[in-house]
């Protein structure tokens, strides 16, 4: 029997007869020894380790309930997808090296030291099968914020050169070119101009001073450019002094998703500096989930002091303008019933929970909520960088079925969300499953229903 026969036995159980699917192979970046990788992983995991992370690392009672909240565990029931297990190696290292009883764990060797191979094995758990949606944090009886610990672990994994290649590639592009998906400043400028022409409007770019700085997600720039026009139309309707800026327009933050905190800072600082330069009072973040987490809840942390402007997610901004009586929308112009997909980072973890509902109410939408919705809504499965990782497609499609079921059971005819990453995950899932639902943009619904003066 050859070596290959032994290593790759034929799997006759599947519809496609082939060799057995091999274990997920881990990607690596850079040249370094295993010891160096482990040391870097632990050092950068522990960097910025504060009180909250420590108390949460120390509090798990191994009840396993977090598995029941995870959209990767629920459809597969594969125990490795248990959320807290995804940081097990870092938990071990913390208890052995840094916790209050580190000497005790070391003395009795209760926690063995972590190896580079374990880190490689954990790459799939920390990146392919976690969208950092934080649903597990909602079920944990100890209130552990597992999602934040995953992000912390990613800091270590990035420096150890142990993250999925695709995610590394897009993050590197974002750092060096200004956009993960090729929306470089000149491309962006072109596309804004094109959208202006298409819509017979002049969309301001690089104004020296403006009250409002608009930003976009590269997914919108490259795939849903109508969002650019929709945002500008809303600004025109409100009569605001606004601009786009080629110095700070890309709201996605692949530094955050990949785990490179230096790049995360660079990416946030581009927008922050652009906003300060033009004297902006508001920075409007686009329909993008993690952009909101990155700038709204971590931007000032990156800046090191309070920001001299306010940050709003577009759905939040729309709701505020509706409530202030500034934004006038056509009532009952949206045909058919609608269900709303709550983007995790904006709603559950971001706090803009009622804003989209205020907007839909102003549109007179027949809203049929999913069960559960708001902070308990299931993730689309593509957040946290998961959609960029090709080898994660299988698990992502399994989790997407949970989402499709939720949408179907709502009984609504249309599906709307306020995150372009969710939207492209829905598009991809729709194609994969030949599904009849297309995810629409809340912002575009608003822009299509502005009352003309």
């Amino acid at each position, binding site marked *: 029997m050859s070596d290959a026969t032994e290593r790759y036995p034929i799997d006759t159980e599947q519809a496609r007869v082939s060799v057995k699917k091999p274990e997920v192979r881990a990607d690596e970046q850079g040249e370094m020894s295993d010891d160096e990788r482990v040391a870097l992983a632990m050092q950068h995991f522990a960097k910025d380790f504060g009180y909250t992370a*420590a108390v949460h690392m120390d509090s798990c009672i191994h009840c396993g309930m977090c598995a029941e909240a995870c959209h990767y565990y629920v459809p597969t029931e594969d125990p490795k997808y248990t959320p807290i297990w995804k940081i097990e190696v870092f938990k071990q290292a913390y208890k052995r090296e840094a916790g209050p009883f580190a000497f005790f764990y070391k003395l009795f060797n209760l926690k063995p030291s972590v190896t580079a191979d374990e880190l490689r094995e954990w790459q799939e758990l920390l990146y392919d099968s976690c969208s950092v949606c934080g649903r597990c944090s909602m079920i944990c009886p*100890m209130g552990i914020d597992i999602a934040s610990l995953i992000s912390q672990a990613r800091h270590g994994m990035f420096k150890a050169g142990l993250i999925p290649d695709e995610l590394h590639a897009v993050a590197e592009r974002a750092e060096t070119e200004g956009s993960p998906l090729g929306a470089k400043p000149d491309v962006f400028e072109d596309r804004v101009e094109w959208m202006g022409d298409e819509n017979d409007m002049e969309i301001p770019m690089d104004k020296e001073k403006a009250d409002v700085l608009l930003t976009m997600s590269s997914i919108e720039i490259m795939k849903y450019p109508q969002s650019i026009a929709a945002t500008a139309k809303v600004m025109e309707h409100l009569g605001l002094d606004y601009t786009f800026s080629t110095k700070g327009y890309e709201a996605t933050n692949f530094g955050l998703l990949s785990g490179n905190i230096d790049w995360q800072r660079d990416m946030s600082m581009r927008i922050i500096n652009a906003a300060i330069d033009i004297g902006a009072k508001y920075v409007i973040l686009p329909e993008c989930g993690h952009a909101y987490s990155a700038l709204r809840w971590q931007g000032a942390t990156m800046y090191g002091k309070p920001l001299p402007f306010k940050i709003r997610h577009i759905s939040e901004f729309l709701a505020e303008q509706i409530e202030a009586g500034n934004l006038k929308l056509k009532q009952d112009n949206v045909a058919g019933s609608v269900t709303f997909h709550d983007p995790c980072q904006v709603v559950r973890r971001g706090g803009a929970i009622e804003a989209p509902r205020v907007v839909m109410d102003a549109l007179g939408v027949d809203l049929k909520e999913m069960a559960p919705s708001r902070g308990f809504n299931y993730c689309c499965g593509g957040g946290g960088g998961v959609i960029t990782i090709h080898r994660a497609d299988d698990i992502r499609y399994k989790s997407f079925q949970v989402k499709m079921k939720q949408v179907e059971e709502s009984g609504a005819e249309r599906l709307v969300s306020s995150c372009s990453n969710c939207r492209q995950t829905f598009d991809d899932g729709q194609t994969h499953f030949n599904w009849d639902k297309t995810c629409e943009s809340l912002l575009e619904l608003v822009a299509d229903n502005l009352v003309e003066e």
Partner: protein
Amino acid sequence: MTLLEFARGPGLQGALIIFVVGVLWRLVGILLLKHKRDYNEPRYGGLWPLWGGFKMIFTRFWPRKPFQARTAYNETLGYIFHIGLAIIVFGGGFHILFIEDLFGVSWPHLPNDVIYLAGVVTLVAMIALLIRRLTHPVLRMLSNFDDYFSWLVTILPVVTGLMAVAHFGARYETLLAIHILSFELMLVWFPFGKLMHAFLFVPSRAASGYIMTRRGAST
């Protein structure tokens, strides 16, 4: 010195010292870590985050509705054995005398039959949870020495207590001594393992409650 004298004297003192010092060490070791200043503009500022942190200490006692069906087994048995232990420790006549000896406070006890029943129910619930831990793929994978040892040092006082009241297996004095020693073993292990959740649930829940309330996010 008889075994019982040891258990009631130096054994108890030693165990209490390890318990108190250990618990303080672990709590202080965490609580003294830097609290990062959050410069991001809060959605709810002022005292709201503190209130949110305080609230979450209590709201997490019970799973939220969307999760109830999937966690019913764990939650039910967990509650049964925690309440059972509380009834035994704070309702049992012997235990109240023991507490009075130590701290000088006492209160009326529950009828002995209630305590025995609570003991048996607790035992059954804990065994059922152990079986689940050994058979459920998620729990089996997560479990380590701490989980099994903490289970053992928690169930031993229940078993030895029931043996002592039933005068089963040895002289009453010996059984009583073993019962007290098993409780001391639990005290000694307490600060080092997951039993610490009896204290840690407060700062752990409060930390998330604080952060998420500040954002206006879900808690």
